[in-house]
């Protein structure tokens, strides 16, 4: 039986046409794009085309607003550190409690260096309070960094509106859009977003390539200094094969944008409804009415996520979880905690994230496999009785150092 891959928010398969596009840049097209001779020149032209392909997908006004980096994390760090560098008198940052570690760990580190970071809270469905945000915007804030779509729940934040609010107060705005690019239509030239991060491997390009979109005129200081690559804004010889691949992947993503929002969305809904119809004590986390078309995060109460993943994996299904064990920390996912999901459910969250490669047959197989797995683990759970949760679960089982 073929394995079923439903972990596309972690990473995606490289599109075969993308692989084909990049291969020549390992062999005959090996030149350094900075070189004057024909070896380099041809590669230089290929990079130019890739830049325009990225530009088209996100609706940037100029292709020179596209800076190629090594990954989404590099783009995030570059954006935030640049904003602090160009505005040394501004010592505050606004972000959210549910960002990716690429933002959160950096912000926590910056706090140790004396910066003040405001973490916007979310409600039970993972939504922000824009009044709280409006009150924090001031001339002390160097940058706002808010993700476009949450990687765990798929919940979308109103970043275009938030960028306008920041802009009206003279504050720079960055968004980590690695999950949203290719799934949400974007037209950056008509908005106020100053910086935006893209990660290639989230949209069927290879790992090791990212983009920082930098609006023309936004003040900037590079993270890496050296050669004149990327107009001096990101030194280091270009990863030409991967840049070409990312360009091709962006073109593919644009062509499939409608498909993602109709067909993939329909498969996701079918999966979600199919599971919820059969499994009691399970619910969708995040904001079901406003989320990425490919993502579905379900909390299965009274069992633990890693155990679910291991059993799914045994049957050839790949997904991921917000449990402490899989997050590599002692606490379950910070996103689930921020939404106030109780521990007994937060540890049992499973994220299914689809791609355009998934089929209806696959989804039906998953719908058939998941309910028995949940039932099997609940049989082991101290919170579960014969046919449902024990009465007063929190009281019935109260381990010593809870």
């Amino acid at each position, binding site marked *: 039986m073929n394995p079923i891959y439903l972990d596309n928010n972690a990473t995606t398969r490289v599109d075969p046409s993308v692989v084909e596009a990049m291969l020549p840049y390992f062999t005959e097209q090996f030149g350094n794009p900075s070189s004057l001779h024909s070896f380099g020149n041809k590669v230089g032209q290929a990079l130019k085309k890739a830049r325009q392909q990225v530009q088209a997908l996100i609706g940037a006004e100029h292709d020179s607003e596209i800076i190629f980096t090594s990954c989404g994390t590099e783009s995030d760090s570059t954006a935030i550190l640049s904003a602090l560098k160009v505005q040394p008198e501004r010592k505050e940052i606004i972000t959210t409690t549910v960002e990716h570690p690429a933002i959160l760990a950096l912000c926590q580190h910056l706090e140790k260096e004396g910066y003040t970071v405001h973490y916007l809270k979310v409600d039970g469905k993972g939504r922000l309070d824009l009044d709280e945000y409006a009150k924090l915007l001031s001339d002390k804030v160097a940058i706002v960094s808010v993700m476009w779509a949450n990687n765990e729940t798929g919940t979308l934040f109103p970043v275009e509106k938030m960028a306008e609010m920041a802009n009206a107060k003279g504050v720079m705005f960055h968004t980590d859009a690695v999950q949203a690019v290719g799934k949400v239509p974007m037209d950056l030239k008509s908005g106020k977003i100053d910086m935006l991060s893209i990660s290639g491997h989230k949209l069927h390009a290879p790992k090791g390539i990212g983009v920082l979109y930098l609006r023309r005129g936004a003040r900037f200081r590079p993270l890496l200094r050296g050669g004149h690559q990327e107009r001096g804004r990101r030194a280091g010889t270009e990863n030409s094969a991967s840049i070409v691949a990312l360009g091709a992947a962006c073109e593919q993503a644009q062509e499939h944008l409608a498909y993602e929002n109709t067909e993939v969305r329909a498969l996701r809904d079918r999966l979600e409804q199919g599971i919820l119809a059969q499994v009691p004590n399970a619910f969708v986390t995040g904001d079901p009415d406003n989320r990425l078309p490919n993502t579905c995060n379900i909390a299965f109460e009274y069992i633990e996520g890693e*155990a679910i993943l291991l059993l799914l994996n045994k049957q050839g299904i790949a997904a991921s979880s917000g449990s402490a064990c899989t997050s590599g920390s002692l606490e*379950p996912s910070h996103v689930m905690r921020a939404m106030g999901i109780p521990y007994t459910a937060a540890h049992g969250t499973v994220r299914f994230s689809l791609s355009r490669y998934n089929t209806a047959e696959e989804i039906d197989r998953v719908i058939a496999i998941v309910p028995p797995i949940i039932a099997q683990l609940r049989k082991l759970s101290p919170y579960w009785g014969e046919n449902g949760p024990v009465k007063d679960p929190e009281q019935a089982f109260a*381990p010593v150092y809870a």
Partner: protein
Amino acid sequence: MWEYSEKVQEHFFNPRNAGALQNANATGEVGSISCGDALRLMLKVDPESERILDASFQTFGCGSAIASSSALTEIIKGMTLDEALKVSNQDIADYLDGLPPEKMHCSVMGREALEAAVANYRGEEWKDDHEEGALICKCFAIDAVMIEDTVRANNLSTVQDVINYTKAGGGCAACHEGIEEILAKVLAERGESFKPAQAASPVAASGKLSTLERVKRIQQVIEEVRPALQRDRGDIELVDIDGKTIYVSMKGACAGCQMEALTLQGVQQKMMEALGEFVKLVPVRATTPAPGLCNPS
């Protein structure tokens, strides 16, 4: 994904003794829901002989928590309570052919459930002294609370102290930033400030050492690392020095320990720093003849 042994996987996929136990007369409930691991151990104890006639578990937890619970029930069935209390968390891990360092706490939870169940049977109150922090040292599975407590109790002030007392940071060294943060915090509490070691690892002056000085330094390094090993019921002894090869004998718990290679690497690194030259540390087994006697190479 974690690297689980075949045995762990087998006990997870086919857990033994799972579910509620009818007529149980001893129950231990331990774990932490916030951490996502909790276990109820149920025993049926023969009042005459105090022998465990049957055991079962219910676990809210990950693969290794379920496997550890399953292993625990298999190990203790048929034992008397006193015999069962001699089962350590290491015994549970060994029964499963080892657990990843991040998952050792699952075996600790098993051991604690056992203590709690026995206390419950005997009408005593079981109190855990358990406080778990974020895992800092992944090589030796040492958490923040353990490091912080040790730093406080022993007035430690350097990363090297922490390595000597807890082993944390003695392997790959990637966690030294985390250890420095803990040191800075505790030192600040006692009104001192943390002074990091020199940024570059200090290498002895490259001038050639006299043979006597060289042997002295090697002995000194061995003496420095012994207390940490002895705390884990192990030890190390210098056997011989042959040019750039230093033969040592690993004793007690260190001999055959899964971490032996890591421990040796750490000691070798210290040797090289102390001597300012490359040396190789080779463990000599008690059963193998001393080098140089009949070793043809």
